[in-house]
């Protein structure tokens, strides 16, 4: 069910994106998938570095076939522009004049170095919202640190629901997912940007929003960090009742946190005798006797599949979820019925299956489109919108500006 394009939440919002890899492009994608006109500006010939990162069909690198790029740049239009040239900057500032927001991920000071300092941008558009995303922010001793995702990820603690095996050698915390920290920064930047856009509409003046990836991550861990940096020191976590259980065919997460949820687990297990002991009488008793209780629960789980545990517990009101592989999520009936996965065709990469958006607006989900080819909309935007004649476009291309 696709509504007319002008009927999407962010229809009419023009956003420029100077972003590479994950964080800034995800910020742009979130806005674009909601209907904003996001113009992605890439370096001529080279483009976004994500174009050189896989996954690629057949494992063969190709700048138009990177799964990372294709996913993170849906619903955008793309142009190429060399901002190191004066002509490139001139075109850029004309685009800025018409945009509501600019998202960039250049290292601190780099835009100013080439003459695109805050004053120049404000002269071009005093109502501009300019969001800058950097690993550590625009000030402080780590401002110029070089990073990849792994470094950003580990610059913040990250709590996971795992209880290391007794006596196992101490290992470093592993990162979550693939590029989670970068996605986090992009999502937080999108919230800041949209709020600032609303503020700019209300006041008629622009705003500069600074997003430090590290700080965006830390904000998400605020509760657990808060517990550690304030007295009294909390007792070490000894593991929960339930938690990660091994089923016949994999792992399942079970969280009987509240009393009625524990009772649901008891019913699902067939109300065995041991659950009526003193050790199980309340939350505190259960936690104190976790060493006795946990093997009993695991014993029950041993004989069941993930699906059996999941549906039986949920039928009793106890939260649970199987650990699903990516392939399993893809065919999960819940997401099938919600049309969460969409097939998007692309002239070079072909039809691929993408996750869409995690929210429905009045039951409408995906209304987006495929990622742009490198420089695909140069003619449309620089020609038709800014009025460059085709001869001029050819000249700009020949001199490497676009």
């Amino acid at each position, binding site marked *: 069910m696709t509504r007319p394009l002008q009927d999407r939440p962010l229809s009419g919002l023009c956003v420029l994106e100077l972003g590479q890899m994950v964080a800034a492009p995800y910020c742009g994608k979130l806005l674009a998938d909601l209907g904003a006109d996001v113009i992605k500006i890439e370096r001529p010939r080279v483009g976004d570095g994500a174009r050189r990162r896989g*996954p690629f*069909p057949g494992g063969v690198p190709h700048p138009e076939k990177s*799964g*990372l790029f294709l996913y*993170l740049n849906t619903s955008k239009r793309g142009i190429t522009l060399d901002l190191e040239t004066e002509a490139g900057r001139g075109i850029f500032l004309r685009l800025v004049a018409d945009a509501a927001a600019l998202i960039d991920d250049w290292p601190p000071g780099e835009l100013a170095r080439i003459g695109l300092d805050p004053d120049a941008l404000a002269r071009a558009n005093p109502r501009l919202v300019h969001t800058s995303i950097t690993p550590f922010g625009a*000030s*402080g*001793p780590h401002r110029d640190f070089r990073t*990849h995702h*792994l*470094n*950003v990820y*580990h*610059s913040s603690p*990250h709590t*996971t*629901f795992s209880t290391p095996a007794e006596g196992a050698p101490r*290992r*470093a915390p*592993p*990162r*979550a*997912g693939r590029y*989670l920290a970068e996605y986090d920064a992009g*999502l937080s930047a999108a919230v800041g940007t*949209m*709020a600032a856009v*609303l*503020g700019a509409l*209300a006041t008629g003046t622009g*705003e500069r929003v*600074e997003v430090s990836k590290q*700080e965006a991550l*830390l*904000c998400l861990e*605020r*509760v657990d960090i*808060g517990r550690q*940096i*304030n007295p009294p020191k909390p007792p070490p976590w000894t593991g*929960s009742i339930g938690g*990660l259980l091994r089923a016949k065919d994999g792992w399942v997460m079970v*969280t009987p*946190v509240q009393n009625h949820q524990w009772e649901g687990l008891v019913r699902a297990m067939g109300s065995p005798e041991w659950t009526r002991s003193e050790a199980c009488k309340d*939350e505190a008793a259960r936690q104190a006797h976790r060493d006795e209780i946990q093997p009993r629960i695991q014993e029950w789980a041993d004989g069941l599949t993930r699906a059996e545990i999941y549906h039986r517990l*949920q039928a009793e009101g*106890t939260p649970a979820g199987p*650990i699903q592989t*990516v*392939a*399993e*999520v893809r065919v999960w009936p*819940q997401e099938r*019925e*919600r049309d*969460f996965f969409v097939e998007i065709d692309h002239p070079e990469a072909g039809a691929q*299956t*993408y996750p869409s*958006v*995690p929210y429905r607006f009045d039951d409408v989900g995906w209304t987006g489109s495929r990622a742009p080819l490198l420089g695909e909309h140069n003619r449309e935007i620089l020609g038709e919108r800014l009025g460059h004649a085709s001869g001029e476009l050819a000249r700009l291309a020949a001199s490497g500006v676009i």
Partner: protein
Amino acid sequence: MSGQGSRPAPLAGVRVVDMTWAWAGPHGTQLLAWLGAEVIKVESHSRLDHSRMRSLMGGTLAGGPDHSPIFNDLNSNKLSITLDLRRDEARALLRRLVAVSDVLAQNMRPGVMERLGLGYDELCRVKPELVMLSQSAVGSTGPERNYAGYAPTFSALAGIADLTGYPDEPPMPLSGSVDLRVGTAGALAVLAALYERRRTGRGRHIDLSSTEVMSAMIGEAFLELSMSGRSPQRAGNRHDVMAPHGCFACAGPDEWVSIAVGGEREWAALVSVIADPAFADARFAGPEERWRNQDALDAIVERWTRARSVDAAVDALQLAGVPATRVHSEESVGLDPHLLARDFFRELEHPVVGKRRVVGTPWRFESADVGIRAPAPLIGQHNDAVLGGILGLSEAEIERLVADGVVH
């Protein structure tokens, strides 16, 4: 505690009725409150936000509903009123509040609001341009819509837990931060709907799936499945192309440095710092060789890191241009000189919890007054201000509602 700039906050004038609880919903509305919205949390003593009383990894909390540092970390800048929504009169008051508000956010199971007579259709009758956010575990449609969940189950279902951890160890479901990601996505959806309403005058009902928020954050893993037919697997700290790419033990107890090397320039920089003759070996001649032989490569790197403190390792590597950071724990991050120099942690005085350091905001606004201004409200702290000041009830009426248990 003041915000960051001097101009009015961008959401000044936006009023949010906050019926969320636990972590995910409250953090989303907290973000709106930091951005200047007037967020009115609706609870009651018969249905407390359970983060006032307990947490997944901390168990039951000591003290009463105003003693929870967790609640304080998720509900700053908000107001609190207590309405017992089992009572008709309380629901009527809630409708009156919605009529003079812009947004209603809630994260009860799908169908609960409808059963209370507070579904989107009913609320639209009193506020046609309402923006309503409904967050749930797996969304309000689909065969499992009534299933319940917490952060670790969202991450389990979403596919990210299976991608997190070492290949030879169990997967690692993520914990509370997942909820805060869900809240952040919810805040974005509300802001988009407010933007649209400004243009069209029309409201929206947003159905948000917590699990889908997390699947969307591993998007390229699904593209990999689509392109190769293979389901990606967890790889600890390793990367599919870069090497070295991992965390290495340093001299100090439980100290680790993360090092990620992409491209020849960074490799040359690493070689210049560590200067181990073994790097000249043919096994490390190019990126593919290094990736194939990364066990051996990692051993050489770790021999170097083990001989120095994490700070010395990070400084030497960064000076040469090698991406490296300290692997922070929840304790060490509170002492981070960079974050201290940026004044990231704030001190917040709460009348019951006391003075606490709280983690700051994910953005800094240059001009607008955005940020953490006030601690989380005591339960019912703003009954008079909201029921009297906003709904115009007299003192006598409020007293009567309290006596009748409608305000509870």
